[in-house]
């Protein structure tokens, strides 16, 4: 095992972080990169500004936002007749283009599921910026490749969340683009909540 000092691949500045975050943020030029056995890799990212009226302790949580093409070929759901009827009247529900949000922080399974489903079904709208305004980031624990695999899990979760009991699903999911998104959150007794 060899220990190296982490330096920014863009400007060469040494990185000083308080947390053990594998997404290294350069305080000099604002570049974020991660490292693996092939070397450093820059990561495209964007930051959403926090709601100034949100109370409580604020922090930034990383998410992988994956632009996907999700196409359902067939499904079998037991129960949920009213939902099925409403869907049929609306002209069916066979997927389409969507943004899937995969939480990239280390979260318990309940919070992971809640945030993934909530953000994917209602993607947040915000003015994009590149700085964190002095607010701390939660370390990233899930890499891009893992997030792309997890997109499949989130897509099926969306179907399973619908009324009725899912028994079969035949679908195709293509990830067209991946980006690291930092969303402002506040700590609450029931877990982290979005503070946009």
């Amino acid at each position, binding site marked *: 095992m060899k*220990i190296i*000092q*982490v330096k920014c691949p863009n400007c060469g500045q040494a990185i000083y972080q308080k947390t053990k975050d594998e997404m*290294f943020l350069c305080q000099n030029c604002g570049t974020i990169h991660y490292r*693996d056995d092939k070397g450093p890799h820059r990561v495209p990212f964007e930051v959403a500004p926090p709601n100034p009226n949100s109370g409580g302790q604020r922090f930034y949580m990383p998410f992988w936002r994956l632009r996907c093409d999700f196409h359902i070929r067939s499904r079998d759901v037991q129960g949920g007749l009213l939902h099925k009827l409403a869907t049929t009247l609306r002209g069916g529900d066979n997927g389409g283009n969507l943004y899937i949000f995969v939480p990239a922080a280390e979260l318990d399974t309940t919070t992971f599921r809640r945030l993934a489903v909530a953000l994917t079904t209602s993607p947040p709208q915000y003015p994009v910026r590149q700085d964190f305004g002095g607010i701390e980031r939660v370390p990233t624990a899930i890499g891009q490749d*893992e997030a792309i695999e997890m997109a499949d899990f989130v897509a099926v979760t969306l179907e399973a969340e619908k009324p009725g009991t*899912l028994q079969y*699903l035949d679908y195709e999911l293509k990830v067209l683009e991946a980006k690291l998104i930092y969303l402002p959150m506040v700590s609450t007794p029931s877990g982290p909540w979005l503070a946009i």
Partner: protein
Amino acid sequence: MGDITVGLNCPACGGAITIAEGESVVNCQYCGSTLYAEGDKGVQTIAFKNKLDERTAIGAAQAWWGKGFKARDLKRTGAVTECYPIYIPFWDIRTRVAGWVCGYEERTRSDSKGNTKTERIYKEEMVLMDLAYSEIACDPGDLGLRSLRNFSGESTFEDLDMIPTFESTTSRDDADAHARSDAIARGRSSAHVPHITFENLHALVKRTSMIYYPIWVVRYTYQDRMYLLTVDGVTGQVLSGRAPGDPLFQSLAVTAGTSIGGLAAAGGVLFTINTGSEFGIAGVILGFIILGATYVFFRHGSEIIQGDFADRKKGPDMRQLGNIGKMIGGAYR
């Protein structure tokens, strides 16, 4: 799970730093530099510090001789002929399994009139959990070791120069594939869906480490026969081994098992013939289960075996025995 720390120095200021096993980022407490641990092609190598000496390893072996149904005079007449430490490499792989298992469970109910009704309960179960997997990274020969049970301890590379070390002979890709398969199987099992109609499980390898683990090999003789056992060099527990069994106990147990099993089976047959009631089939099934259990417990003869030896299958599977009983019951009916 993992609680291993490795002592290193900061390349920026030279200060002593510690990094936990499996972690790749650490911040120097002296100069604040963020540091990254580069592994060998992404695999971190850790060596546990050996905590035993020859005397304590032999003491652990002798304590093991006195446990269970081993020969009663083993502790008195067993003689250690050889005792030495070796380092054995293990893959330590952390995975996350995520997905859905859908299907149904069938429950059969009977009413007071004897009518039975099978109800189908539909299920959709989410699987999302982190798992640890380990497997030996070399050919262990007849040591009876296949996986690592302890993941906590102090790490050092100092002992590697003094203690013989087995070289890793298995590939990381194979180990990762085994860890993924294990994660999928455990995820599927955790869902508890008996009849699966749809399954979508993803196993992600989060971290792969190579752990060199100290093992003490103890060879001993009993009545001119050679036996071998291994002792965990960190915890002092016996990991695997063979020992002579107690012939008197095994004779009594086999006699009792076959007698009770035979009586239960014969009693069940007689009860069914005399009364015409199907309840007698339960006696036949019970008898065969007892016979099967007796065979499973004592099929190795007079030798007591602990550990992952090729000739030692997993423990008695009562469900499997129950299924055999059902088959017999079905055939009889």
